[in-house]
């Protein structure tokens, strides 16, 4: 069946005139330029630094991918609505700081506390906090018709202010929060299972599992619920969605609230993963997440996107940056490369939908 299809495609290709052939090839090359670059880069890196393809490095890439997935899953929804969310990174920072301040043994922020509250309570608290920021974003976008860029730019600043004030509380005086409880750390970074290698074994951390669960959850929400269908409808044509009886405002607000909750989970994982949290935790995370979504085919055209695309996008981005790190490329240069990747991804995305006009 699949073979027949490929053959039919080959046949169709052969029948094209040479001019059409060139056009087809250009289309193919340019529309997949991002993937081609990444594949070439990976090949180059693995030749130069063979350790890159060894098991520890692969597990490292997968773990880092898992850590960055939830935030991308959240932002993906905002992009489907033709919006975006640049407050994401700061929300991650805020929730990481809250988790680190509560699930600690030192209690610098709350000097009166003596023992850490149950982990589940902290998790619920930060999910509510993330959802609240998301609600403010969503409400402003839905009701005041402000552009998500402007709205989330403001909330980003507000959240940053809150983080700084929060860190000044008690005896902490703006310092990095550390000294997390063992329960919290082992829940997140504990070993899920180990893969034995020649030189010992490589541990896969537990948060990989949590990320997988979140991916499944989001897939169900996007594909199997009324809310998901409505989200795509609003993203592809808001007016038509309104006429079709979709509650447009509610849908937009819910997308942003869900996104906020996802950032909260990211913050929760990150606090334990890095073993500390400060005002810079989560900085620029939204850039990576937006880039990953666009690479993964969540289009700014609106109404287009798949969860699988987001996963692939995050993974590819992680591979390329881990690879560049292996080649000891300076962090300053990485920012420039990241910016260029976002630009190229957008240009390619735009091209795909221009051609079809």
């Amino acid at each position, binding site marked *: 069946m699949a073979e027949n299809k490929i053959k039919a495609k080959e046949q169709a290709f052969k029948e094209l005139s040479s001019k059409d052939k060139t056009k087809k090839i250009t289309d193919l090359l340019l529309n997949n330029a991002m993937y081609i670059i990444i594949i070439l880069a990976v090949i180059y890196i693995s030749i130069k630094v063979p350790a890159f393809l060894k098991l520890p490095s692969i597990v490292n890439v997968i773990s880092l991918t898992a850590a960055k997935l939830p935030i991308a899953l959240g932002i993906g929804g905002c992009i489907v609505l033709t919006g975006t969310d640049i407050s994401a990174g700061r929300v991650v920072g805020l929730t990481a700081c809250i988790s680190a301040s509560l699930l600690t043994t030192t209690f610098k922020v709350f000097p009166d506390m003596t023992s850490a509250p149950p982990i589940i309570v902290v998790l619920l608290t930060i999910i509510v906090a993330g959802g609240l920021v998301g609600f403010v974003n969503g409400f402003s976008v839905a009701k005041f018709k402000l552009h998500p860029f402007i709205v989330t730019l403001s909330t980003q600043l507000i959240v940053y202010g809150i983080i700084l004030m929060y860190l000044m509380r008690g005896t902490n005086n703006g310092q990095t929060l550390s000294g997390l409880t063992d329960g919290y750390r082992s829940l997140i970074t504990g070993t899920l299972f180990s893969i034995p290698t020649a030189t010992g074994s490589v541990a896969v951390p537990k948060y990989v599992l949590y990320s997988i669960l979140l991916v499944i959850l989001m897939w*169900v929400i996007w594909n199997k619920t009324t809310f998901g*269908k409505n989200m795509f409808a609003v993203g592809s044509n808001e007016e*038509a969605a309104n006429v079709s*009886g979709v509650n447009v405002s509610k849908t937009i607000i819910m997308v942003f609230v869900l996104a906020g909750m996802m950032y909260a989970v990211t913050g929760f994982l990150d606090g334990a993963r890095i073993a500390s949290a400060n005002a810079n935790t989560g900085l620029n995370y939204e850039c990576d997440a937006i880039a990953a979504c666009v690479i993964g085919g969540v289009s700014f055209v609106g109404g287009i996107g798949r969860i699988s695309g987001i996963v692939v996008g995050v993974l590819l981005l992680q591979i390329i940056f881990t690879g560049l790190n292996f080649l000891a490329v300076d962090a300053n240069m990485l920012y420039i490369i990241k910016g260029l990747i976002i630009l190229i991804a957008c240009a390619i995305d735009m091209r795909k939908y221009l051609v079809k006009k």
Partner: protein
Amino acid sequence: MEKQTVPSENKNVLLRMEGICKEFPGVKALDNVNLTVKAGTVHALMGENGAGKSTLMKCLFGVYNKNSGHIYLEGKEINFKTSKEALENGVAMVHQELNQALKRNVMDNMWLGRFPKISKWCPLTSEKKMYDATMKVFEELDVHVDPKTVMSRMPVSQRQMVEIAKAVSFHSKVIVFDEPTSSLTEEEVDHLFRIINMLRDRGCGIIYISHKMEEILRISDEVTIMRDGQWVATRPAKELTMNEIIRLMVGRELTNRYPEKDNKVGEPILQVKNLTAQYSLLKDVSFEAKAGEVLGVAGLDGSGRTELLENIFGIATRKEGEIYLHGKRVMNRNARESLANKFAMLTEERRATGIFGIRDIQANTTISSLPKYKKGPFLSDKLMSESTEWGINAMRTKTPSQKTQIRSLSGGNQQKVILARWLLTSPEVLLLDEPTRGIDVGAKYEIYQLILDLAKQGKTIIMVSSEMPELLGVCDRILVMSGGRLSGEVDAKETSQEDIMTLATKYA
């Protein structure tokens, strides 16, 4: 302004359009149209909505590329690519909808894109030159507007004067007026006509597009009438009467482009009382609709037809008025409520407010009836694809599969998908706004058949259309709107296009 009776035959031909044809996919919009405008005359262009007047003008200004035909300006063949090129060659248009930079002042708008420079060597724009030049044009036209007024602070009529002044400042030889009086008061119309007469006396050729018969007879020297994209007649205005014009405009034969009507009209189920809109001109509309009836709504563009449907469906803000279904009051404050009350609405702008272009057929079909497919908290793919399949079969939609993006379908098939979307909500009242717009003739017949089938199932259908033969062919009764009010109600079997046209211009 008394009508001038200059014999126009011996004047020079300024603009000649010959054998203009323009085709859109599936539709022949212009078929061999001729138009000759002589210098120093006002030439009225008339026709029903969609007769091809604006398409003809768009071909002149290069907005559309004509398929065949020639345009001559003062004997030289021209083929403008953009309206800027047209302007530079002395052909200007005063649009019905003003395209102006409202936040800028009058002279900025006048000289937009060609600001005068201080001198050849100094590329800064000269406010003074701009001001003087503007004042000069205004004095010529007897317009009393300070060139430094910000556009948005002026009434529409004055903004229109600025637009005319702009056309004059280009030393235009041919000026097209597209429905210029639709927002003017009696006095302003007089002023406009004084200006038009002055331009004519200077030797300009004026093309005047309007629906208003009295105006046409008052201002124009010659009248060209179009119908269905074809040229019908060009006559001196003094030989025409209002009735004659109406006859020429609508005088086409009804062929059996419509399916046989076999729906049975039942009891009245829908009452609309004193419906008045908050933000549009819709005023005090009351009517009744019966089960199994196809109720047409006729009227000119901007007569409030669309607004009527939007207000019933709750997607426009209602000021007052009540709607009763089966004697029970329904609020219909938004589309969701209307949906729950078993209303459905097919909107006029299919692309803008109908389809989800990049979504597939299934998503487009099921979006309004999603709760129906729930199994527990999740949607069932099986139920959704069954319903979609039903929609495709019932509407005879031609599509490769359910997973095809809707934008790759033809207009007619898109319309069928949206109809299926609404039928899946099992509505009792279907509001259809221009259900056959942009659809080829064959598909139109199928849509008519679907409408009548639905009526046979006892559904109430309210259908807005600007094509009068369509209304006469499909509807049982026709409401005629004019200037936002209901100007009459006629029985489709006993009325004629002439009657409807007269009613439609009642408050215009």
